């Protein structure tokens, strides 16, 4: 391989790796909800885009910087997730797999239609001074925003690790995952823990949405793109492993940026989906998942 090919390949690899961190944040929200409640949240991608549009509104109307707007967006997202689980989803998970599936799909459709009505199908983007800046060393340059994406992902992962492993809330989440009945028997309020978990998942989703909105343009249908990516992260990485989710995110990030590099923008998501598909065929439990 000539030096030129390598140096051309380096930026997409770095970008894919950095972007992958963000994908793992989205994936973790989905996998957390499934791991704790055995519930598939088909509206997960809609909440990713919720973060993007929320930041867009604050940026275009109030002029608030997307990074600063996180202070508003994250608590509200948590509240929405918490309230949704407490008022609606907690009534459903006991009834089996299908009722929450249908309900969250309904939420996804409602949100997608709402985005369409309010924001039109035209693509939007969060354009700031730093979202169009380049970073790099010498000849090696790529958009600066990818570094911010990765920092955000890293902070989220560290926060999550500490929450799950060093606090009573995290202990309760892990107990509820392993044996809800036993968790009740030590005095844990399962419905409350489920609501906290869903609140966290939605917070991660919209956090991902704000940074993805800074990185790529978005449309109402991006909800479903990011839902598939979140699924893909879990499929590739394996369920129930934080490290696996992280690796899954990186793999999909790389698939996208390398797909773009080799085949052009029209194929970047196609390549990503292809990787998910291949993974489902050859190793359905994921890279670090345990065969069940």
């Amino acid at each position, binding site marked *: 391989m000539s030096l030129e090919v390598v140096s051309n390949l380096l930026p997409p690899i770095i970008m894919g790796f950095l972007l992958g961190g963000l994908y793992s944040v989205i994936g973790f929200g989905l996998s957390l909800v499934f791991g704790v409640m055995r519930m598939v949240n088909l509206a997960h991608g809609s909440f990713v885009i919720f973060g993007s549009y929320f930041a867009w509104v604050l940026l275009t109307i109030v002029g608030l910087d997307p990074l600063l707007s996180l202070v508003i967006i994250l608590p509200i997202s948590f509240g929405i997730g918490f309230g949704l689980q407490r008022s609606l989803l907690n009534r459903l998970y006991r009834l089996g797999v299908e009722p929450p599936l249908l309900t969250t799909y309904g939420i996804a459709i409602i949100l997608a239609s709402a985005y369409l009505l309010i924001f039109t199908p035209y693509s939007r983007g969060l354009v700031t001074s730093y979202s169009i800046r380049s970073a790099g060393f010498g000849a090696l340059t790529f958009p600066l925003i990818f570094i911010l994406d990765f920092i955000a992902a890293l902070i989220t992962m560290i926060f999550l690790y500490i929450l799950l492993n060093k606090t*009573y809330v995290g*202990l309760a989440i892990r*107990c509820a995952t*392993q*044996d809800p*009945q036993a968790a*009740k028997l*030590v*005095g844990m309020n399962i419905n409350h823990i489920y609501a906290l978990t869903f609140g966290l998942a939605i917070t991660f989703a919209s956090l991902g949405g704000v940074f993805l909105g800074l990185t790529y343009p978005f449309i109402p249908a991006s909800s479903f793109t990011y839902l598939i990516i979140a699924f893909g992260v879990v499929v590739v990485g394996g369920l129930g492993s934080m490290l696996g989710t992280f690796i899954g995110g990186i793999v999909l990030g790389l698939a996208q940026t390398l797909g773009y590099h080799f085949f052009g923008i029209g194929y970047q998501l196609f390549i990503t989906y292809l990787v998910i598909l291949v993974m489902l065929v050859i190793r359905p439990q994921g890279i670090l998942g345990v065969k069940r």
Partner: protein
Amino acid sequence: MSERPLLKLDQVSVYYGDLCAVRDITLEVRKGEIVSLIGANGAGKSTILNTIMGLTHPKTGSIEFDGRRIERLETHDIIPLGLALVPEGRRIFPELSVLENLLAGSYTRRARQNKQQTLKRVFELFPILEERKNQLASTLSGGEQQMLAIGRALMTDPKMILFDEISLGLSPIITLKIYETIKKIRSEGVTVLLVEQNVRQSLAVADRAYVLKAGRIVLSGGTKDLRDEEEVRKAYFGA
């Protein structure tokens, strides 16, 4: 013995759908007692314990613990009152360490205050748990897992512990050791309600016993009177 019972069930009936699991259960446990509830498989023993703990709710009847009505409370509101259950099959958290399992027991605000003291007490009772505190709970032997389940229940700082089929799947030696521990726990002021198929063993440690058959209490009394009694054998094995 004239003081008010710590736990009192009055005419409790529990249904699963249309099916009546237990009917008109009336029983009481006084402070400091070990009371045994015996009966064959399917007689409704676990149902009674689950109902006391708020995991299911009775259709009729009342349950009183420490002077409070609890039959409509949820489990997470009952635990802080000082009731704990060591469930059948132990139900430890397999992918948590031994220490984390115990800390999970101290989840309620009340239990958290005395966490260190209680932990010390549990480790004195079961030194093996301290030795293995950083191990995953799933790597423990059956007997050790049972100790962990008891330790976790103790961590909730209970006034009373309910034990469900504690000797199930354990060797006779381990079972004996577990029963010694139960006596020790009682001597430290914790009231005990035992549910067992192992009649001989549980009658040996209990002060009083209730015999359950097909969802009803058919016999009760002091274990001295009940032991070796033809009636028990008939009620327990009865045709």
